[in-house]
């Protein structure tokens, strides 16, 4: 993990080539960004939101 000059955190994440097939599908949807990195970050946000929603329901 590295910290950028503007205080953001760079994390390198390995995906298998078969997992990248799923990232490509999300890319094709057009709503998660234009690169794999953008897809990963936006889906990660969606995941956190869904966890928060689930905790709110419990």
């Amino acid at each position, binding site marked *: *993990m590295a910290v*950028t000059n503007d*205080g*953001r*955190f*760079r*994390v*390198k*994440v*390995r*995906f*298998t*080539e*078969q*997992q*990248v*097939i*799923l*990232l490509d*599908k*999300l890319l094709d949807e057009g709503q998660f960004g234009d690169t*794999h*990195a953008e897809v*990963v*970050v936006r*889906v*990660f*946000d*969606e*995941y*956190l939101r*869904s966890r928060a929603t689930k905790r709110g329901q419990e």
Partner: protein
Amino acid sequence: MSMGMPEEAYGSIREEFIVTPISGKAFPVRKGEVYRIVQTEGGQCVDVNAWALADRREFMDTSIMRRQGIHTPKNGFLVSNSPYNRLLMKIIEMAPNNKADVLMHRCSRALLEAVWEVPTHSNCQDMLAESIREYRLSPDHVHAVLCPWTPTRVDEDGFVRGIGYESRFDTIGDVTDILALEDMLVATCICGIADYSNLGNFYPRAIQLQIFEASEATRQMVAETAMTYPPLKSQLSRDDFAFSGPTADYAIDPTPDPSYEPNYPYWPQKEVEIECELSPAQYAAVRTLVESHRRDDDEDAVRRAVMEWYLMNRTNPHPLMGSVHGPFNGAGARR
């Protein structure tokens, strides 16, 4: 390590093999030998098939093994299909948290296409088929699997749920030791959907296979099993099946095909490294996942989150998967 027969009582190691993701391997295992699967890196769902060398029509049958529990326990048996119904192998060592599932059947191309819309993905049916091709068996010989390190449960409504392990470190270094009570062919693969499922922690890793030669102690254990559960008068012999052809036609040649070259798709496993920029809040969430939810590290926390989200939000409900990864309400539930 051993809570039953100590490893010192086994014979010498005659075979050692690292199964790399995502692939499998088959070996003959003789009566009295011990077949060991090692979780070298932890958290890996594993699929096992077993056939009698003398007759490939006789194989381990999980539907009858379920009578011992939905997880075959330590000291439980791999039992052959009806009408043979023989005790083929015995699990003699496994840790208490090692749940050897016999409900899941095995993943297949059709499952991956139906649920993830990825028709070319690695899968246990194809990998087991490829591994036994070395011994001249064909894809139709693959049968329902024994899955060590695959915690599942049946909920109060009777639906099967895949649970997985919270952390791969819960099983790292563990072994499953299986004693051969007959001459067998045993095939093991890394689960084909380990990267798409929590049952493999969303990241396929290597396992190790070892075969220990028979020893006086293991032969004694085979003999004691035969005394406790002697052959049954009602069990049909292979000669009773003469109507379907000479028995010799069904024997498995235990010598590997010298021309065999393994051919698994997406093997060896390739990776793509993606560098992501996270806000302080997002990174704090990553650290929470690592520290409170036992993800391996930052990478594992992010990757697992993405794959879990995809599983819950972009896969199709389908009878081939049923309720394993989420509620399934039948044919009307297609997304």
